């Protein structure tokens, strides 16, 4: 039987097991929406902006491990989703984005709502397809899902011209596809793995530097086994939070620009860095020429281009983290004994000393303004038993969340790492909530970043996605203000928001619930109250406007040269008082 392109499209989604798509219609995709409207297997969540659709699909994919699917129209529909595609590309999120296109006969004629979707998305997708013939549609969709989810995952765009969705073809869905130019390497080179095992056995000061790849490949168990067996501390990148249990004694927390003091010191003084599914991003390495200067580097990654892109690697292993770690553990089981623990005792003593010297700290005056760290710490403590999924936007609140949420499991942490997309958190949280309607989904946002996708409040209310948004309101683009404080003599050029909406009224206007904690004593209560509401909740928490996020490695600085608190002259400026003596440790060079 012959089906229209639109019917083929919907059939393909069903065969791929797609339950939910995030979509916004337009002229050239109406036929597809018409078919979607007449079936019940695939739920369509109508978003208020295509960027929201893209981020929701990302949140869905990050939380489930399955590809997120978005469907948008041509022209502006497509250009609006570009930010989400670029975000997914940087953070290796499996996404299949379908875009409408003007009829094939009009392509290139500057038709109404025409854009070069393939050209626009080329640098921000793993691959993209223009379907010119309805007979190719099914196999193209199969290929799109295959490319998005295999190897190093990433976003794939499929551009469907209007006539392709209208024309008819015989429907055959291929069971599998192969692409001759695309053969990801999953199994690591055995000889290299043996070399790595040997290096690990001998190392006196080893450290695991784990990235998001551990989560994508589902290698958390193997990572835990390796770390425990060999007593190796685990530094996590922003993308890896949850890959290793945050409260485990071997967990060092987050490394990098706003990572913990001990995580960064350890990587700097280590003699063996075992990088797993990470890509030596500049926010982690700092000054790349002085990154882990004393260490041999083992790098396990499925993407060969990640290896030796930024730093030299001694033992490169191209392969899937899970498979490589499993094999590595197999070899180590035979060789590792009590000796390593003895060998590494001085290393652990040193690490514990670093931990004691500069713990994450803030001072909460019970009568003073709410410290953002206090809010986030309490939010973590009051929700951790419910195993929440936590989404964040980008900025200070994101870094504090990364520091204080010690997530126990993978796929609980939705954040925009590589691209640093403000406005990501709220729609991403909704995407996760759509996948897991009964789970607690939190979104920590800034008052700046929340306003970048506020319109999706409507989507949350209509689709009953009871996401709990906590807005860390400091009246500024806080991270920008922090950089201005530190590097631009506190000249707050365009970082002060001046007016922000009344978030309670805003939430209520959309039919959501708005709450506020105005005093320190109200923080716990408002968190508890928000958790009891089975509706989208926006909690506005005005915090100390000038709190800055530390530790901090200035861009291009070395990992062992962290700024640990506001420099004295900044403190003076803010406090207006001179307090001699207390500032001596602010810039610490180890």
């Amino acid at each position, binding site marked *: 039987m012959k089906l229209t392109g639109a019917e083929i499209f919907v059939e393909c989604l069903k065969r791929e097991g797609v339950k939910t798509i995030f979509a916004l219609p337009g002229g050239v995709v109406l036929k597809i929406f018409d078919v979607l409207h007449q079936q019940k297997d695939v739920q369509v969540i109508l978003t208020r902006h295509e960027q929201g659709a893209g981020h929701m699909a990302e949140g869905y994919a990050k939380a489930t491990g399955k590809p997120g699917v978005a469907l948008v129209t041509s022209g502006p529909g497509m250009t609006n989703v570009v930010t989400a595609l670029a975000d997914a590309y940087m953070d290796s999120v499996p996404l299949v984005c379908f875009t409408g296109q003007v009829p094939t006969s009009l392509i290139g004629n500057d038709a109404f709502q025409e854009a070069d979707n393939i050209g626009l998305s*080329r*640098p921000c997708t793993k*691959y993209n397809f223009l379907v010119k013939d309805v007979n190719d549609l099914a196999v193209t969709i199969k290929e799109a899902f295959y490319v998005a989810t295999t190897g190093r995952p990433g976003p794939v765009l499929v551009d469907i011209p209007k006539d392709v969705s209208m024309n008819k073809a015989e429907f055959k869905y291929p069971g599998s596809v192969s692409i001759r*130019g695309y053969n990801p390497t999953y199994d690591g080179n055995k000889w*290299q793995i043996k070399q790595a095992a040997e290096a690990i056995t001998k190392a006196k000061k080893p450290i695991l530097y784990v990235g998001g790849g551990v989560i994508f490949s589902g290698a958390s168990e193997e990572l835990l086994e390796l770390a425990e067996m060999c007593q190796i501390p685990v530094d996590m990148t922003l993308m890896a939070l949850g890959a290793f249990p945050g409260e485990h004694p071997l967990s060092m927390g987050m490394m990098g620009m706003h990572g913990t003091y001990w995580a960064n010191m350890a990587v700097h003084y280590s003699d063996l860095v075992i990088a797993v599914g990470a890509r030596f991003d500049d926010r982690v390495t700092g000054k790349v020429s002085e990154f882990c200067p004393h260490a041999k580097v083992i790098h396990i990654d499925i*993407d060969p281009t990640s290896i*030796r892109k930024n730093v030299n690697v001694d033992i490169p292993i*191209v392969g899937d983290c899970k498979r490589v770690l499993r094999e590595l553990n197999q070899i180590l089981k035979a060789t590792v004994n009590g000796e390593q623990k003895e060998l590494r005792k001085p290393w652990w003593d040193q690490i514990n000393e670093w931990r004691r010297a500069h713990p994450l700290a803030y001072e909460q005056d019970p009568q003073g303004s709410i410290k953002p760290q206090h809010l986030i710490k309490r939010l973590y403590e009051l929700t951790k038993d419910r195993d929440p999924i936590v989404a964040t936007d980008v900025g200070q609140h994101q870094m504090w969340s990364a520091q204080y949420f010690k997530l126990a499991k993978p796929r609980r942490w939705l954040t925009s790492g590589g691209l640093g997309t403000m406005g990501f958190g709220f729609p991403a949280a909704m995407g996760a909530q759509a996948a897991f309607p009964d789970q607690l989904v939190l979104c920590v946002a800034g008052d700046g970043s929340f306003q970048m996708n506020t319109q999706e409040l409507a989507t949350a209310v209509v689709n009953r996605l009871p996401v709990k948004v906590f807005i860390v309101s400091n009246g500024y683009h806080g991270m920008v203000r922090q950089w201005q404080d530190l590097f631009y003599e506190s000249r707050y050029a365009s970082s002060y928001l001046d007016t922000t909406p009344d978030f309670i009224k805003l939430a209520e206007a959309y039919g959501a619930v708005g709450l506020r904690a105005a005093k320190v004593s109200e923080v716990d209560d408002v968190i508890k109250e928000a958790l009891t509401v089975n509706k989208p909740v926006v909690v506005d928490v005005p915090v100390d406007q000038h709190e800055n996020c530390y530790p901090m490695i200035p861009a291009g600085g070395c990992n062992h040269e962290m700024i640990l608190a506001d420099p004295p002259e900044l403190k003076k400026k803010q406090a207006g008082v001179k307090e001699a003596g207390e500032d001596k440790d602010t810039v610490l060079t180890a």
Partner: protein
Amino acid sequence: MEHIISVIVENKFGVLSRVAGLFSGRGFNIESLSVAPTLDPSMSMMTIVTKGDDRIIEQIVKQLNKLIDVIKVVDLNESEFVARETALIKVHTKPEDRAEALRITDIFRANVIDSTPTTYTLEVTGDVHKIEAIINLLQPLGIKELARTGRVAIAREPIRPAAVQPKRVAKE
């Protein structure tokens, strides 16, 4: 250092822009690029001449391999290769220069492929030095137009006397 990279790609629309986009997006440079179908018409061969230190060349090769439409990448500099380029040169020739132009043509084993009372069009093939040398010699006569193909290259078939073991190229 200059490298010549030979890339087998899918012969379909948009592939050239993916390769070109990779080079521009990552700040790699292209000295010359030539593309034509292979014996199998479903594939094309690109010969890319590029410059960079070892780390950049390694990245170029890896990034090319990562492109889904790229089937095979060979850095020809890893072994012996031969490279050739063709140039078509239209030279102004005053009556007194015509003999000189033909002498130069002869020296470089070039061919005259078109002629008018005031111009010769020459075809010359050779390595890049030869092309540059003939251009230098013809310039005083006045070059009206010049079209160069960019280089194409192919690995030399190794000669393996029984006593010599083939050299193994280390790979990750």
